[in-house]
């Protein structure tokens, strides 16, 4: 094919504007005409990576490796795809090979750090990230990745510093904003975390990870509210048995518990940005959340009712039943939330590796 450089440039331009399917179609024609072009196979791998076709990306990258074994790029592409497929040892091996071939190129160290981080080897990741920073101190992705590594090692202050540096270099780096949100969350600052997630979603609305993270945080907040409410209720149920108080103070205590829990939740919500408050309304109206709240409050009300209306003589028999009802309500509420509270926050990887 005489037009190979132009076709590759065209494909490269398509990849730059994230038109992965069009690029794949063009590159399929190119590689069928020029199957010996290593660069064409690399671009093909990058197109597949962008379109989340990881197995195909690995095949294309392997083909490029067989054509030009001294090139580091296909190893990085393969490593990236392997990380997405969860094959971390092979991803790290491919990244290591890329680094061996081009030790002076910062991207190879970023690739090693990313694979090591995914494979739960923060020590290796930290060392590679440090080397990448030395080679390319002005690359936002290097600081972004360094921040992720620091967060994985529990170094919150350092992680925050790196992400802020990434944002200073690229104010629209939504990945760094997302990471700052995760750091805030580690510090139990829900409102602050949501603010960062919203900034990330605003900067890159097509990336669904950020809005999903907001949903996860909101669901966690609801879930924790239910947890605290049922826990306090569980303690309060013992009051009549221990103190032999009258029915009225007991009912007042229940009302106060419910009121305080609702006030705490409202306080958390009010500290959130306007956009998040709108989402809270939607979250609370969601059927499974509404069901969870109804189960928890209904269960606690029944348990309190049993204890409050039981004659003092029967209290010892009624109390275990009330405890069981409260615990069951809590478990049922969590089941209604269907593991929302256990969902992990998502992180964004460094973008698919260009040359």
């Amino acid at each position, binding site marked *: 094919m005489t037009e190979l450089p132009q076709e590759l440039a065209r494909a490269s331009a398509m990849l730059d504007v994230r038109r992965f399917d069009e690029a*794949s*179609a063009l590159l399929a024609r190119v590689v069928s005409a020029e199957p010996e072009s290593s660069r064409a196979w690399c671009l093909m791998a990058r197109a597949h990576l962008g379109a989340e076709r990881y197995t195909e990306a690995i095949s294309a990258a392997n083909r490029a490796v067989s054509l030009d074994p001294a090139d580091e790029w296909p190893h990085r592409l393969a490593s990236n795809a392997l990380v997405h497929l969860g094959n971390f040892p092979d991803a790290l091996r491919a990244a290591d090979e890329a680094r061996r071939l081009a030790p002076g190129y910062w991207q190879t160290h970023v690739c090693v750090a990313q694979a090591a981080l995914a494979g739960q080897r923060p020590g290796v990741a930290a060392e590679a990230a440090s080397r990448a920073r030395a080679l390319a101190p002005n690359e936002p992705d290097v600081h972004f990745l360094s921040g992720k590594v620091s967060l994985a090692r529990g170094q919150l202050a350092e992680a925050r510093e790196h992400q802020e540096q990434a944002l200073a270099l690229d104010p629209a780096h939504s990945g760094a904003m997302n990471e700052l949100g995760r750091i805030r969350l580690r510090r139990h600052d829900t409102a602050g975390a949501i603010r960062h997630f919203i900034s990330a979603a605003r900067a890159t609305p097509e990336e669904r990870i950020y809005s999903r993270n907001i949903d996860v945080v909101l669901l966690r907040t609801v879930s924790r509210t239910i947890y605290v409410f049922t826990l306090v209720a569980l303690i309060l149920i013992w009051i009549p048995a221990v103190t032999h108080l009258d029915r009225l103070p007991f009912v007042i205590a229940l009302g106060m518990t419910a009121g305080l829990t609702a006030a705490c939740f409202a306080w958390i919500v009010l500290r959130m940005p306007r956009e998040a408050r709108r989402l809270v309304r939607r979250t609370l109206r969601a059927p499974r959340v509404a069901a969870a709240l109804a189960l928890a409050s209904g269960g606690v009300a029944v348990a309190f009712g049993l204890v409050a209306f039981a004659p003092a003589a029967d209290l010892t028999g009624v109390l275990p039943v009330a405890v069981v009802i409260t615990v069951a309500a809590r478990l049922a509420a969590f089941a209604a939330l269907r593991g929302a509270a256990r969902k992990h926050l998502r992180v964004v990887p460094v973008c698919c590796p260009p040359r």
Partner: protein
Amino acid sequence: MEPEPTVLDSLRKAVEAMPDDVPLRLHLATMLLQAGQRDEAVRQLGAVLQRDPGNAQALGLLQGPAADSPVISPERAGSPAVPPVPHATPAGADAGKTPHYDWSQAEDELRDVLPAMFVGGGETEDSASAGIDEADAYDTEQAGLTLADVAGMTEVKQRLEAAFLAPMRNPELRRLYGKSLRGGLLLYGPPGCGKTFIARAVAGELGARFIAVSFADIIDMFVGQSERNIHELFEIARRNAPCVLFLDEVDAIGQKRSQLRNTPMRSAVNQLLLELDDISGNNDGVFLLAATNHPWDVDSALRRPGRFDRTLLVLPPDAAAREGVFRYHLKDRPVAGIDLARLAGQTDGYSGADIAHICETAAERALMDSVRLSEPRMIGLGDLEAAIGEVKPSLGAWFDTARNVALFANENGSYDDLAAYLRKRRIM
């Protein structure tokens, strides 16, 4: 030389990703023939002919493998006992192999005994032809269109008239009210919903020439000297005034510079800004229109006053537009007893491209039945309804992103109309 399996696999993946890319399918079919995989080649050629019934290359390639494949034999297809299927893909494909059979005559003879194509709705065949043009929005180029050719979408037309066309057409009133003509109009909305067609209709309304710059043209610009190419494009528009310059998929050319690592593309955006400002200064007869599925990816500099400062949301087709799209995609196919209003009612939330896909799926179903029964049959309402069950609306991903935009990135109210639509549809 026999192609390698990896190459064939790559081509298959590419075809899966771009099912409507006819040249790519033809390329795959050619390679499959070379590899001796005739059955799959015939399938690919059949798919090509579904999308482009007269494709000479596909017909030529079919001459070889078709004899061995389970498509309808010309003798059967040409049997006087069955109604003619003038535009059906397999029959059309085989028609080239039966020079002795006069398809036109057969069509004339049987015209009276064929059932009506469309039922329900009050429109006659003649009035339906107007609808055919309306829906042309979704695939082909057509000169001389006006907004009257756009089926349904009344709200979009009204807003277009108020925001763009009325000031353009009334220079005296424009001067009286001091209304500026600076800037262009950015059409945005989900993919496959008629933005390009509306742009052509606007050109028709203004009686202007129409220069459309597609994504492929944009990419070609980046391959050469992008700044010079962009400058030349605008010069051509100025020379051809009155002229509508339409930049399709403007997010590709005007992507946020912060997202672009590639220096030539960054400079292309800068050049585009320069040209837009030049046009604003001397805009006699050059009207700027652009379309994008992702306005949020367009560099904010492009959307400042005097550039693409007016936006118009083009939403999925309403019921009237959907009827038009169905009518267009079925007009050249052998159909009978189709209740367009009923189909339109069942496809709320579908894009024009989705409806085209439904029609293709229904045609495929009828084709497969014909192959099985060795007797061509008409495409019926049942085929289309079954296809609607199979084809799901493709706009979910777009609306997910749109929801994020309306929720988090609508600080200055740019997406209020989108937010209102999402609330109305209970997406937000």
